[in-house]
Structures are given as structure tokens and as C-alpha cells.
């Protein structure tokens, strides 16, 4: 398997750095906020608040193999073992555990969350806010019913709340919110998103130049710091490398036989799983996770365009939204099979998989494999069992060749 040049040392160069920056900001008295996924981070960047992503931190702890110790710390405080492992891991990190990766997350001046990913996200932020005695701003996001409603009162409701957020941010930072600054951030965010989608488009090539392991690292910019020069510059380099690979027909693996879509999260504690797939001549060419954070921004309507970027989201939506995305990925990326991982502590990722599997097969004849895993708690993952399922699935695919 051939890893990319651009993503080499990604953790050290970018993720580790981001925590060091945040700790430095905190020490210097610059405002730091904890941000939950699907929150329009551009709003924070526009007023120079340093964003820290607990969700990212949980994946870091999992990759560093310490997430279970932190989950157990949360369980000792009474939080059920059946809760999201991201949530338990992050809560565990604020309950006095020692030896935290990157020295832990800096204590926030305030927290911001949205209901747009799942119940878990904002409930966990609510607990953190109470325990850390720091204020929480919550965006109440309408459920995405994948219909025409987006045009009407949903956008209005979102924009009205962003106006409330402006006041909250001004109050917290003592600064004035500058719409022109927001526009500048959005211009970069829009550019980031377009480049990231170009990168995804490169992966349509056969053989595909980039697999899931690199994608799950590189998505960091799209997800956490989209409106920055650094993100644009990095994605430009990554896109160029992929284009070159595509031109020279260099794939992630030499014997690419099975092209897969991976839905939602990986097992952060076991990213080598993707190498294992490669060893079976299978390669992940697209992830729903790489697409959900993207979106164009029209800077002439800075607030409304954030609503339009963040409202459609398969995590906070009826199944059709997710099915449409999977169908598009399966078709346009010439996919042979779909992997649908469930997640023990996540209802959004676990319920309704059978419906998705059925519809994708009906519409495209592409089979899916449902595997029971967990993003950060390896106690909920039975590797031998999952590998048996994967190998049986690959065998089915081999007979369809």
C-alpha cells in the first residue's frame, strides 16, 4: 500500500500543533471555546476565538490507545457504558485523569454546541458545561426532513439563532463582531470545501489514488479549521499530488479489485483496519464522513449561507438524506460494496441500517455489509468476528466480478 507524501507526519505537523496552539492561546488569555460537530465554526474564527474539538480529541485518545481508560473514568462518575464512547472519553478527561494526550484540552472560556449531529453531542456538552462551570451556547437545529422545508422557516430559524450567537460571542470576548471578517473567513472556508471536493473527485479514478486512512486524517481541516489559509494551502498540495497520481495511474494498492464506500466513523483505535482491507485487494474510495462537512458559502449572504451549509446533514435527518448520499457515492465512485459500521453508543449510526442496505441494493444492485464496531471503545469490538464477516463479504463480491 502506498501512502501519500502530503499526509506524511500529519498528526505531528497539524493535529498535535493545533493542541499546542490552543494551550498557548489559553495561557496568553486569548479566548478558547469547545466546539461540537455541525456547529458553524466560521462564526468563532471570525471573532478570533480558538476552536477546540472534543470530538477530535476523542479520536486522538483512541488512536493513542488511552480512550478506554478515560471512558472508564466517566463510567465511575455514573455515566453509562452504553453512552457514546466519544462522550465518555471526553468527560473522562475532565474528571481528574492524569497523563492525557497533548496535555488534555485547554479548559474553555465557553462551549458551543448544536443539536445538529445527535442528542448525545449537546447533552454531553451540557454535562461538561455544568462540571466545568463554563457557559454553553446551543444552536437548536431543525430536523432535516429532506424535503422542500429547507427553503422556508428552517433557514429563518437558523439565521435568527446566529444573530443570537453574535451577541453571545461579543459578550464573551468583549469584542465587536465584524461581518467583513466573517465574509473573509467564509471565502476561505468555501475554497477549502471546493478543494476538498476536488480531492474526493480525484478518488473516482481507477485505481483510486487515496484511501480511507489518509482521508480520515486529512478531513481534519474540512471539519475543524475550514476557514484558514493553512487548510487551503494543504488541500491544494494534496489535490496536486492526487492529480499526479491519477495521471500516472498510481493507486493506493496495486491489485485494486474491490472498491468500497465506508459510512460514517472509523475505529479510531484501529486505523490499521483499512490496511487489512487493502490486503484483501479492497480499498475505500469514499466515505460519507468526508462529504457531510462540505458546502458552498455565498458571502453576499454570510449568515444565510451558513444555514444552508449546515442544515442538510445526514446525521440529523430522515434516512433519505443518507441514502441519497450513499447512492451518489456508490454510483459516481464506481463502488462494488458499501460498509455500514454501527457504533455501540450511537443511535444515529446504528438504527435503520437495514433500511439503507435494502434501498441501496434495490436501486443499484450494490450489496452492503453491516458490522458492529465502536469509534473509540475497543471493548465493543470483536475483531475476529468482524474479520470473518468482512472476508465473507469480499467472497460475495468476488463472485460478482
Amino acid at each position: 500500500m502506498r501512502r501519500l507524501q502530503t499526509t506524511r507526519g500529519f498528526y505531528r505537523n497539524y493535529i498535535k500543533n493545533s493542541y499546542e496552539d490552543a494551550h498557548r492561546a489559553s495561557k496568553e488569555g486569548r479566548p478558547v471555546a469547545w466546539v461540537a460537530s455541525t456547529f458553524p465554526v466560521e462564526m468563532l474564527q471570525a471573532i478570533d476565538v480558538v476552536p477546540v474539538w472534543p470530538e477530535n480529541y476523542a479520536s486522538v485518545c483512541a488512536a493513542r490507545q488511552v480512550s478506554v481508560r478515560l471512558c472508564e473514568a466517566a463510567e465511575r462518575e455514573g455515566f453509562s457504558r452504553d453512552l457514546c464512547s466519544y462522550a465518555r472519553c471526553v468527560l473522562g478527561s475532565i474528571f481528574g485523569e492524569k497523563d492525557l494526550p497533548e496535555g488534555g484540552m485547554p479548559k474553555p472560556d465557553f462551549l458551543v454546541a448544536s443539536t445538529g449531529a445527535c442528542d448525545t453531542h449537546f447533552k454531553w456538552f451540557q454535562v461538561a458545561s455544568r462540571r466545568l462551570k463554563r457557559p454553553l451556547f446551543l444552536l437548536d437545529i431543525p430536523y432535516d426532513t429532506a424535503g422542500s422545508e429547507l427553503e422556508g422557516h428552517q433557514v429563518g430559524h437558523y439565521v435568527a439563532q446566529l444573530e443570537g450567537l453574535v451577541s453571545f460571542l461579543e459578550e464573551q470576548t468583549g469584542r465587536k463582531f465584524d461581518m467583513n471578517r466573517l465574509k473573509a473567513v467564509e471565502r476561505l472556508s468555501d475554497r477549502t470545501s471546493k478543494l476538498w471536493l476536488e480531492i474526493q473527485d480525484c478518488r473516482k479514478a481507477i485505481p483510486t489514488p487515496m484511501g480511507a486512512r489518509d482521508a480520515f486524517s486529512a478531513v481534519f481541516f474540512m471539519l475543524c479549521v475550514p476557514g484558514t489559509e493553512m487548510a487551503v494551502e494543504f488541500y491544494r498540495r494534496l489535490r496536486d499530488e492526487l492529480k499526479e497520481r491519477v495521471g500516472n495511474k498510481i493507486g493506493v494498492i496495486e491489485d485494486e479489485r474491490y472498491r468500497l464506500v465506508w459510512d460514517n466513523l472509523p475505529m479510531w483505535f484501529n486505523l490499521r483496519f483499512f490496511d487489512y482491507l487493502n490486503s484483501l485487494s479492497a480499498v475505500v474510495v469514499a466515505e460519507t464522513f468526508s462529504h457531510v462537512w462540505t458546502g458552498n458559502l455565498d458571502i453576499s449572504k454570510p449568515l444565510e449561507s451558513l444555514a444552508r451549509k449546515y442544515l442538510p446533514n445526514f446525521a440529523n435527518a430522515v434516512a433519505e438524506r443518507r441514502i441519497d448520499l450513499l447512492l451518489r457515492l456508490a454510483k459516481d465512485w464506481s463502488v462494488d460494496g458499501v460498509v455500514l459500521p454501527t457504533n455501540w453508543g450511537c443511535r444515529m449510526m446504528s438504527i435503520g441500517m437495514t433500511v439503507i442496505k435494502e434501498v441501496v441494493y434495490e436501486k443499484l444492485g450494490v450489496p452492503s455489509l453491516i458490522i458492529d464496531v465502536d469509534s473509540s471503545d475497543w471493548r465493543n469490538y470483536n475483531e475476529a468476528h468482524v474479520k470473518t464477516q468482512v472476508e465473507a463479504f469480499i467472497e460475495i463480491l468476488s463472485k460478482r466480478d
Partner: protein
Amino acid sequence: MRVLEQFRTLLSTRHEVARNWKSRNKPVVGWTCTYTPEEILHAADIMPVRILGSSGSTRLADAYCPDNMCSFCQSCFDTTLKGDYDYLDGYVASNSCDNRGKMYDLWKHHAKHSYIHLINTPHTNTERAHGFFYDELVRFKESLEKAFGTPISDQSLRKAIKVYNDNRTLLKKVYDLRREDPPLISGVEALQIVLSSMLTPKDEHSKLLSRLLREVPSRSNPPKSGVRLLVSGSVIDDAELLRIVEAVGGRVVADDLCTGSRYFWDLVDSDVESPLLAIARRYLDKVPCPFTYQSEDRFRHVMDMAKRYDVEGAIIFVLKFCDTHMFDAPLLKEELESSGLPVLYLEWEHAMTGIAQLRTRIEAFIEMIRGVR
């Protein structure tokens, strides 16, 4: 007491009760979340019934539901797959919690109701959220008018508000029968009364409540005194769980359940000019479910209940995989304990597996309270 038996009968014959209504050529619509404004259905002469699970395994639903899904939702879905709800003319869904939101997908795909509507439910109760929910209720009302051909006027909404408020007021009076020691009705009886209210035409139910209130002071077999307990949790749709508590020396005198006080505690303000806006406000401002941002309001309600009903301890019954309750539970436990009340936290499965172990823990908890009396 005959009247108490009638509530029990309504519960055990709930499908027949609904079919009777249908035999008069009137529609029946199922709902799942207590944030569903039943008044709007009532105003269209539709009988709303809460979709509940049934006891035992969920063999049919197991084919579609993962193990880490709320077992109550699974049981509801199984009951539908079995055909027990075939008489329904429609289904009103909610995105209120993740389990329920996802249940909508399963329902839509597998249960082929001609009418299915999802009410987009906010997680906050700010003025903006009220406005958003009002718009959602207008859409809900219009969809009902279109599907069932019955126009819903402000006047019929006002009438429905009155019918529902009357029932709520009576239920509250029934709850107050539990302030005495021993209480005049048991926890099991109280639960059966509230559950039957969700499954019976409201006027009929209110008549029974009035009769109960008249007759109960002279009941010949009042419950015995026991350790006065509050139970908190999401759904308890089968009295068996409370029967266990009351069989080992507990007496459930107060609750914070969505099949209990959270269902009826708050009234719709009948002075507001727009009945739909009054309804929107009532549902978002009521004693909240933990899927909302207003956890502190719920904690306050629990503390008020504990005081009002003079309880000696609390049991938090959390249905497994109910995320929002699981996040709130340690905080609620903290609040209750800091006011000096002992708390037992229990996770349970709707199918009541592992019930022997639960019983042992409940028994030990009650013994412990007795010991410090």
C-alpha cells in the same frame, strides 16, 4: 373498587377501545412522543392513541433493529409488525430523541400507513423556538385537514384545549390522593390511570376520573403504608415494574415519567388569543423530557415532587440506550442526594430480562431506607 378496575380494563382492552371508536367511522391516529399535541387531533374528531409496546420478546423487530436500540421503541415497532396496530389511520412521528427519530425511518419503510407525519420538535423553549414550533403545528394541522378532510377551526381547538385541560386537572387531583400516608391509591394504580388516559377518548376518561375522586375516600381496600418513593425515568408502559417495587415494601407516591406526571402536569393557557400558539407554548414549556436543553427545569420538577409527596427516596429507572436520560441521570442523582434523599440508579430492558437482579437491588435499597428511619 369497581372504578379502578375500569381503568385496568381500558388498558388491557386498549385495541378494542380504539376499534370501537373506529366503528363509528372516525379515524384513529397513533403517536409516540408526549410532545405530540393531541389537542389538534382531537379537534379534527380523530382519536389519538399512544403507541406502546407489549410484553415479551420482540422477535419480528429484531430482524431490523440493532441490539443497542431503545427496547421500548423496539417493542413498539414489534407490536406494529405483529399487526396489533393495523386499525391505525395514521402515525405521528417526532424527532424528539435519536431513538424516536430513527424509529420514523423504520416505521415509514415497514409499516405502510396512508398518513404519516413527522413533527419537527425543537430542543429549546426560547421565544424563537415557540415561533418555529407554531409554524410546525400549522403544517401539522394542514396536513391533517388534507388527509382526513375535516377542517380544524380555532373554535374546535379551543374546545379540545378545554377537554384536555379538564383531564389534566383531574389527573392532578388524583395524584394528590397520594400525599397522604398511606396514600389512597397505589403507584401501580396511578400508572394505570395515566396510561389509560392516553388510550381512551378524553371525555370518557374524565368522567371516570370524577367518579374515582368521589368514591375513593371510602374505598374498602386502601394501599398499605410503605417506604414512600419517587420514580424517575422515561417510559414505563407496563405496571409490572412498579408492582415489584410495591411488593417488596416500597410505595410509589410520586413520579417523573413521560407516562406519568410529565404527560399531564401543565395546562394549555386558554387566555392566549391563538389556540395553536397556546398549544405550541404549552408543549415546549411543559415539564421537560431530557431530550431538551431544559434539564435544570426537570430537576426542579423532581425536587418539587419529592417535597410535595414527602418521599423518602428515589429510584431512577433508565431504559437501556436512552441516551438523554443516561446523560441526565448522574446529575439528577447528585441533586437528589445533596438534598439528603437516597437514590437508586437502575437500567432496565423493556422485555424485563434480568428482573430478578433488579428486584434484589430494589429490595436492598428499601431495606436500607428502613434501616435509617
